Every structure is written in structure tokens, then in C-alpha cells.
């Protein structure tokens, strides 16, 4: 009896500990399904049917490997990724790399505002109203410090992704075709499918996520002895992302691809939810896309400003005054308002913007991975927590494959 009680107490304690450490991985993965994510997954399903579905499995493995490294570096060193890059690679590498990261993240910020604009266009609201209001809202939320309380609402609204899973079943897809596609990975060697593949990789494993995840782990002050829980959290997050991504692709394949309509606006993409929501599908999709866009729009510029200031040694933090941390607030504000401003240009193609930003993510990713691999194998930094040999082999293969795909894509793209 006492034995049982003991076990129960232990389990309970384990669960509590898990919940207290849990968070960074799950939150990161939900932010990851942002406007660019929803757009890219929708496009992948509606243009290529089930044929790219298989790629999500290796992407999930790669996602876990990379996120696990971010988390491990955060736990062991207690420092952010740009901090480590600065201390180990010096000023030059840091500055040029951060420039690339800022530009990439800026692309994502633009995509989030494209998401806000296109989701509310469904309700016939002009982007000239929705985007400035959205930008101001996001800016104020962080500067006024109300973000933490709003975060829970965002997270809760992520249950929206369940709609895709239900709709996916209701659309009665051909499961045998799906099974066949998963079992026999195939890739046509031309710019369009390669670009889509890079987009899928880039949106699922966005470079900014690695900085963000590591920073969250550091902020949560996770100790080395609690690392296992953090790893569980990351694993769970990776699975959640992939399942959601898979169902968006699958549902779009079963509905839009089958009907043969190309996606040009959010209204077209919303058709995937028709089996579940009928004529309310547009409203449901608009809600989901808006939530995803706002969620990421409030994290991305902030996380970018943090990572730059950390690497450069500038003061940062929303508890500082503007005069104390001018670079931090300046960059944060610039990213938001410039990003929103670009969407306000007339005739801005919203869906392509969301998609292209993810391809850029994918092209920058191998560079970030190489940097991370060098850092994590540094004995001085990581002590006994460097990568194991097998893990290293797997990681370097991932980098090589990614680099090869990117090179092939650029080659086909330039050749026309």
C-alpha cells in the first residue's frame, strides 16, 4: 500500500516538475505554426497533393534534433544563442550573421502582417485599416507589458488547429494513397517542388525559433538536472508541429487539390475547412490565421530585438526605459512598423509573401545549423554535454542534405 502511494507520489511529482519546465518547447511549436506556416502547408497540399507529405517525417526528426540542441545549450550554458556566437566566433561573424538573421526574421514579420491583412479581408475589412491597427496593437501589448497575460489566450486559440484534423477526416481522403506516399518518398527535380520542400523545412524549422527557444529556456532558468523534462517538452512540441502541419497539407490535398483550384487568397485556402464548417469555413479559417499571425507578430520582432542586443552587448528588456535601451526599442519598433508598412504597398501579393519568407528561412537554416553544431561540440562550453558521435553524424547528414537541396533549388531557379 505504502509502496503504491510512494509510486503515485513520485509520478505526481514528476508530472508537476514536467509542467513547470514544460512550456518553451510547446509554446515555440505553436508560434511556429504562424501565418507563413499555414500558408506554406496550405500551398503544399493544394499544389502538390499528397506527394510531399512524406517529407514531414524527416523534417520532424530534424526539427527535434535541432531544437534539442538549442534547449541543451540553453540549459548547460545558461546563455542565449547570439551570446554564445559572439563569445566563440567574435565580432565579425556575429555581426554579419545577425544581419542575415534580422533580414530573415524581417521577412517573417512581413508575413505575419500579410496574415493579418489576408485573414481580415475575408470579412471585407481593408488592409489599410487592419494592418496599422494590428501593428499598433502588437507594439503596445509588448511595450505596456500586457503580453504575458495575452499569451495564454493565444495558446488556447491554437486549439483551432484541431479543426484541420477533424476536417481532414471528414473530407474522406484516400488513406491508401496517403500511405503509399508516406512509404515511397519521391521528389521531382525542378524549381517548384524543391522550392516547396525548402519552404516546408524553413517554416517548420525556422532559424528564429532556435534563438527564441534557447532564450526561453535560459529565461526559465532550467537547471541541468531538470534537462530531461525540457527534452520531453521539446519532443512533444516537435510532434505537435508535425501533426498539425501534416493535417493541413492532407486536408488541403483532399479538398482544394482535388477540386483543382489554385490558392490565391485566404478565401481559397479556407475551402479546406468546408467539410467541417460548411459555409462558415471562411470565418473559421480567418480566425485561425489571425490568431496565428498576431501570436507570432508579438513574439518575432521582440525576440529579434533581444537576440541582436544580446550579441552586440546593448541593453535590452521591456522593463527598461527607451533612453536606457534605445537600440532595443528602436529595432523592435522598426521591425513592426516597417513590416506593416510593406504590406500596405498597393497590390502586395499576400499569399506569395507568406510563402517566399519561408523559403528564405529554409535557405538560411543550414548556416545556423553549422554554427550550432560547432558550438555544441565545444568542450569548453558544454563540458560532458557535447553531442554524442551518432548524434553528430545524424546532424551533419541533415545539414548536408539541406545544403544540397538548397543548392539544387538555387541552380534550377537561376537556370529558369
Amino acid at each position, binding site marked *: 500500500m505504502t509502496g503504491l502511494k510512494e509510486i503515485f507520489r513520485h509520478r505526481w511529482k514528476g508530472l508537476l516538475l514536467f509542467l513547470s519546465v514544460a512550456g518553451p518547447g510547446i509554446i515555440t511549436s505553436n508560434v511556429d505554426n504562424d501565418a507563413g506556416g499555414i500558408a506554406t502547408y496550405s500551398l503544399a497540399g493544394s499544389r502538390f497533393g499528397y506527394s510531399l507529405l512524406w517529407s514531414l517525417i524527416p523534417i520532424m526528426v530534424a526539427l527535434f534534433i535541432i531544437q534539442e540542441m538549442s534547449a541543451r545549450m540553453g540549459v548547460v*550554458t*545558461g546563455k542565449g544563442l547570439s551570446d554564445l556566437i559572439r563569445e566563440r566566433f*567574435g*565580432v565579425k561573424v556575429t*555581426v554579419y550573421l545577425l544581419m542575415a538573421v534580422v533580414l530573415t526574421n524581417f521577412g517573417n514579420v512581413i508575413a505575419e502582417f500579410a496574415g493579418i491583412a489576408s485573414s481580415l479581408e475575408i470579412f471585407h475589412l481593408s488592409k489599410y485599416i487592419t494592418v496599422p491597427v494590428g501593428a499598433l496593437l502588437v507594439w503596445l501589448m509588448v511595450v505596456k507589458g500586457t503580453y504575458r497575460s495575452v499569451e495564454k489566450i493565444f495558446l488556447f486559440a491554437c486549439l483551432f488547429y484541431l479543426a484541420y484534423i477533424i476536417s481532414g477526416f471528414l473530407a474522406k481522403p484516400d488513406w491508401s494513397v496517403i500511405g503509399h506516399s508516406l512509404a515511397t518518398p519521391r521528389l521531382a527535380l525542378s524549381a517548384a517542388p524543391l522550392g516547396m520542400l525548402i519552404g516546408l523545412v524553413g517554416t517548420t524549422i525556422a532559424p528564429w525559433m532556435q534563438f527564441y527557444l534557447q532564450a526561453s529556456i535560459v529565461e526559465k532558468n532550467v*537547471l541541468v538536472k531538470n534537462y530531461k523534462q525540457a527534452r520531453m517538452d521539446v519532443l512533444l512540441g516537435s510532434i505537435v508541429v508535425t501533426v498539425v502541419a501534416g493535417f493541413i497539407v492532407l486536408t488541403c490535398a483532399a479538398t482544394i487539390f482535388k477540386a483543382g483550384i489554385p490558392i490565391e487568397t485566404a478565401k481559397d485556402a479556407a475551402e479546406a475547412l468546408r467539410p467541417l464548417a460548411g459555409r462558415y469555413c471562411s470565418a473559421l479559417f480567418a480566425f485561425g490565421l489571425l490568431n496565428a499571425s498576431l501570436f507570432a507578430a508579438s513574439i518575432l520582432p521582440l525576440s529579434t530585438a533581444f537576440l541582436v542586443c544580446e550579441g552586440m*552587448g546593448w541593453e535590452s528588456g521591456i522593463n527598461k526605459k527607451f533612453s536606457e535601451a534605445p537600440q532595443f526599442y528602436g529595432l523592435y519598433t522598426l521591425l513592426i512598423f516597417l513590416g506593416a508598412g510593406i504590406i500596405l504597398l498597393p497590390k502586395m501579393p499576400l499569399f506569395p509573401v507568406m510563402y517566399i519568407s519561408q523559403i528564405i528561412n529554409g535557405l538560411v537554416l543550414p548556416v545556423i545549423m553549422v554554427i550550432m553544431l560547432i558550438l555544441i561540440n565545444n568542450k*569548453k562550453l558544454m563540458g560532458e554535454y557535447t553531442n554524442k558521435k551518432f548524434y553528430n553524424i545524424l546532424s551533419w547528414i541533415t545539414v548536408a542534405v539541406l545544403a544540397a537541396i538548397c543548392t539544387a533549388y538555387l541552380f534550377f531557379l537561376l537556370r529558369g
Partner: protein
Amino acid sequence: MEQVERNSQADRSGSLALKKRQENGGQLFHYFSDFLGRGILAASGKPVGRLYDFKVRLGELFPKITAIVIKRRGKHWELDWPSVENLSGRLIRLRPGTELAFRPLSVGQDEILLREDLLDKQVVDTFGAKIERVNDVHLLSVNPELRLVHVDYGARGLLRRLGWLRVVDAFTDWLFGYRPQERLLSWKHIQPLASDPQRRDLKTNVTLRKLHELHPSDLADIIEELDQESRRRIFQSLDLETAAETLQEMEPKLQLTMLETATAEKASDILEEMDPDEATDLLSDLPQDKQQKLIRTMERPSREKVEELLRFEEGTAGSLMTKDYISVREEQTLGQALEEFRKTELPLDSVAYLYVTDAEGRLKGVLTLRHLLLCDRDAPAGQMMNTHLVTVKADSDAKEVLELFKKYKFMALPVVDENDRLTGLITLKDVIGQK
């Protein structure tokens, strides 16, 4: 801005004359980044390698460079500074015969490497109580020595290292007629933090000395911003009293982690050193078993105080109060009361008032420092005391206590039980700390 002004003032005393000479053409100040990668030549003119690092022995106000370091076949080698003939031009020349004196690098307890331990790393500016990142290191050549005088944390240092300084200067000269200012911090206010994990533990006490100049509140802010390993090292280097004061200033979550990283013995020593009410707050956040373990290892008087305070629920007057106060009996003289005051080591805000009780410990009145200093030493306390008392009960709401403080503007309020017996004291400081 402020810091640069402050530094230039600090420098004025010592190095103004030197600065003048520098302007006149003598290269006296150097940037470390300019030396990095310079070719090293033997006296014969044969190249020996490229400069990888400088080794510095700490201890002096502006420490000397003691060795040059090169990297050859993946290993680091050092050569003592006196072997360097001269530094001028783009090359470093060695004295005859010294090129064979290179030996494997070893870094002692009180030594640091400029590139490995300082450049691009975080340091604490103990004057401004801030953390800065080092963009460059400023050296002064006082023949035949080279000394470490400043660290550069400004935009100019960054641009210099990127190789953009000339272009940017030309541009800003043309556009604004102005250049970004040099931001230098004098080495006497710099505490380096980073170091190699293999040498880390040896160095703890020797090299973190400058941090102890900081006020515990500033130290706590700085520790909060650092990584776990630096936190642990800094915290371990503090003496018990400073550690206790610093811990009190940290945010509650971090207090727990800091205490967990210390050995059980040190943890309980620190708790004894803290104000009992602060120690109790900290302990009450710990799981039951850990709490008990720590309390058991604490010494008698503090242990009893803490155990008593732990009984009060959070949000009550009891949870705010401390056991640190002075009380005298009615029949004792003011002279005796003054003697009590002299003996105490309690913080000033706990002894702003002295409390007067009867034989049963019931609170009868209060004495202030003014009574002790101005009144007749032989008069009994019971006669001189102020009998208009404002008291709180241990179980009253913390908000009520705050209201009383606002109304009466006292430095402290006594806590009594249902029989009016004095059980504790709440100071203004404790109330301010309350959220």
C-alpha cells in the same frame, strides 16, 4: 555619455600628460585588436608565427602584459614579455635567441588571457554597476612594458574590429561633422567574468575581488542577468554577510536556485546571516523536506526565530515581522537601555525604537534614540517612555499593516499577541518589500 565623462575625469589625474604625448606622434596607446594576427619575427628575421593572445597578470591597478601567445599546430605557446624587442610597425620583433624559448601555455590563478577571457565577453563595470560587452581592449605602452588600461565597449570599438571605422568616420565627418564617441572604461572598475571551465574553480576568490565593491542591491541585479555558472561562481566568492545581503535583494525564484547550488552547510550559514523574516520568506517557498533539513542545520538563536516565524501564514502581519528588536524592562534605566543599543549588531531600522515591557513581557511603551541620548541616564525606562502605542496583532492582514504605516509614518511597528505581549517587529523596509 555619462560614463565617458566619468572616465575622462578619472584619467585626468594620471594620464593626461601621456595623452598629450600620444597626440604628438608617439604611439603610446594601442588597441589590442590592432595587434591580433600580427606577424612575429625572430631577431634573424625568420617568421615565428602570428600573435594569438596576450597573457596578463592581475593584481596591479593597471596590470602588465606578461607573455605573448601564439598558436601552432592546434596548441598554444607562450613567450615571456621581456623577449619582445619592439612592437612598432606591422610586425613584432623578438630579441636574439628567444624564439626557442616558447613553452606550452599555462595560465595561473591570477592570470587572464585577453582574447580568451576578455574580448567579446561580458564584464562588470563596478562603478556604473552594469554589465558590458567588451568590444576592444585599450593598452598603454610604458617602455618597456605594455599595460592594460581600459576596455572599449562602444560603437567605435565595434566598428574598428569590423574594419569599418575609417569608412564610417569619413561618412559621419562628411554628413554631420561629428564622430561617435569613444566609450572606454578604466580597468580599475572592471571585473572580468568569463574563464575557462578547467581553471574556473581555482580562480574564484582571487579574481572576483572587485565585485565586492558593489552594493548588494546592485550585485543582486547583476547576478540576475548572468548565466547559471557565473552566478554560482560569484555567489561562492562572497563572504557570508555579503552573500546574505545579496540574496535578500534577489527575486524569490532565483533565491531558491542560488541556495540550492550552495552546499547545505553554507546555505544554512547564509540563512543565519539574513534577517530572520527574509530567511523565513525564503524557507517557506521550499518543499517541506528541504526546508526542515536546512532549519535543522541552522544554529540556535536564528533557528528558533525562523521556526517561530514560519508558523505565520503569508499575507499576515506575522509573515512580515522579524524577531530582531531590542526590548528593556520598565525598571531598567536609560543607561542600561543605551548599553543594549551599543551591544547590538542589528540593522539600524530594527532598532529605531526600543520597546519597554513589564515583567510578563507585556508591551508598555516605547523609547526612541532621542530618549537615550538626551534624557537622564539613571531614570527608569518606565518613567521616560512614550505610552501612546500603535500595535498590530500577528494575525492581522498585511494590508492593514501597510495602512498603519501610511497613516503614522513610523519606522517600525511592534507586534503583540492577544495578551499584549511583545512578539515581534515590522519595519518600514519589510513593508516596502511587500508586493
